[in-house]
């Protein structure tokens, strides 16, 4: 590298005008190409490439309370428009989807509040979102009922977590529900840590009502070969990670196990790498494991996902236009 090679492209300043569309703003961000603006513009470009790549299966990893915060319909629309093929989620995000499908709500609250007063009023807090206890309890009541039904149908056979998601979605009527959309489109939602949330409490109640042999049996190992097979059958694999955690590594680890490596990667996180935790680990670190390919199209956007992700989706939808059609991947079906 010579000195001139470092100084090839000057920063172009962002020009704003009234009535700009989302993608016009992103185009201006690309002209700057710096800091968060540059990263966000690159993320839009990578997602567009994933969608236009006819051999790419797209995985969405969900961690953090993005469903209660307002991304529920964005995710449902992406499923229905076939703009993602596979979801790997915390159980909690699906719990919150279920709560809304049951008629419950998440309320705009505030982070600066006396939490002990909330406790006494039976209101739970997720940063600046308030959730009434009764909405959780009504969901638990339904889970107990559904778990018994599903356990009866499956008899002693275990379900993979994506099968549990489909069984729950089958029993919901809300078209805006992530679980419902996944069931209708046969989009798998893997929940590798399904018991790390309200599912666990509902299961406990269920287990107290029936004999041990009559309980619902969910096995997150059962789906591993199926998940690996999706990677194997895909010509290329692209991931969009919101947050990180267990969903991110479930996707990345499958890429290694399938001996494929990931071709496209967008990570939206606010975490830092110094703890060694996965949510903040850099994409370069991921390359050392063979999880993401060295030459992959990849970017990490440092930002809060409820703010960042809809901008990426809106920008890319605008580029693709209303008539864009994408077949589900991998080819041959899930």
């Amino acid at each position, binding site marked *: 590298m010579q000195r001139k090679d470092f100084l090839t492209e000057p920063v172009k300043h962002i020009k704003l005008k009234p009535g700009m569309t989302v993608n016009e703003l992103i185009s201006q961000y690309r002209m700057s190409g710096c800091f968060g603006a540059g990263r966000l513009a690159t993320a839009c470009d990578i997602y567009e490439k994933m969608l236009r790549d006819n051999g790419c299966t797209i995985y969405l990893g969900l961690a953090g309370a993005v469903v209660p915060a307002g991304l529920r319909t964005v995710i449902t629309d992406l499923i229905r428009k076939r703009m993602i093929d596979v979801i790997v989620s915390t159980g909690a995000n699906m719990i919150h989807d279920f709560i809304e499908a049951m008629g419950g709500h998440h309320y705009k609250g505030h982070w600066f509040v006396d939490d002990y007063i909330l*406790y*006494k*009023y*039976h209101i739970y807090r997720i940063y600046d979102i308030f959730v*009434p*206890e*009764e909405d*959780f*309890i*009504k969901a*638990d*009541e339904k889970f*107990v009922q559904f778990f018994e039904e599903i356990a009866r149908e499956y008899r002693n056979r275990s379900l993979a977590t994506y099968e549990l998601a489909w069984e729950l979605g089958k029993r919901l009527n809300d078209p805006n529900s992530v679980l419902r959309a996944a069931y209708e489109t046969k989009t798998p939602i893997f929940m590798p840590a399904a018991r790390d949330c309200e599912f666990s409490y509902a299961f406990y*109640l269920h287990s*107290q*009502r029936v004999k041990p042999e009559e309980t619902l049996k969910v096995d997150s190992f059962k789906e591993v070969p199926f998940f690996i097979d999706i990677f194997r059958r895909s010509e290329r694999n692209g991931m969009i990670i919101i947050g990180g955690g267990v969903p991110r590594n479930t996707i990345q680890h499958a890429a290694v196990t399938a001996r494929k490596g990931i071709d496209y990667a967008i990570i939206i996180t606010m975490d830092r790498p110094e703890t060694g935790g996965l949510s903040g680990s850099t994409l370069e670190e991921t390359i050392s494991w063979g999880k993401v390919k060295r030459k992959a199209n990849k970017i990490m956007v440092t930002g809060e996902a409820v703010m960042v992700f809809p901008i990426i989706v809106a920008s890319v939808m605008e580029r693709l236009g209303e008539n864009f059609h994408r077949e589900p991947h991998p080819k041959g079906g899930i």
Partner: protein
Amino acid sequence: MKSEEERKEQYCGNCSYHNVYEYPSKIFCTYRLVKRLDPVVSTLWCCENWTPEEEECFCVEDAKKQAEST
């Protein structure tokens, strides 16, 4: 033998099995759910498994106010 005053405070809303179902008047009793009884009961009802563990909730207070006003 509990005094009348103590009995008055034995609301299902004070038991350790309760959660709110319809604030403040209805609660969801997980003990009853497990026993396959109707789990939705009045907050001011006294559960057969009432325990003297103090729950610092507003639901009993508010349910009493609501009951008085109707």
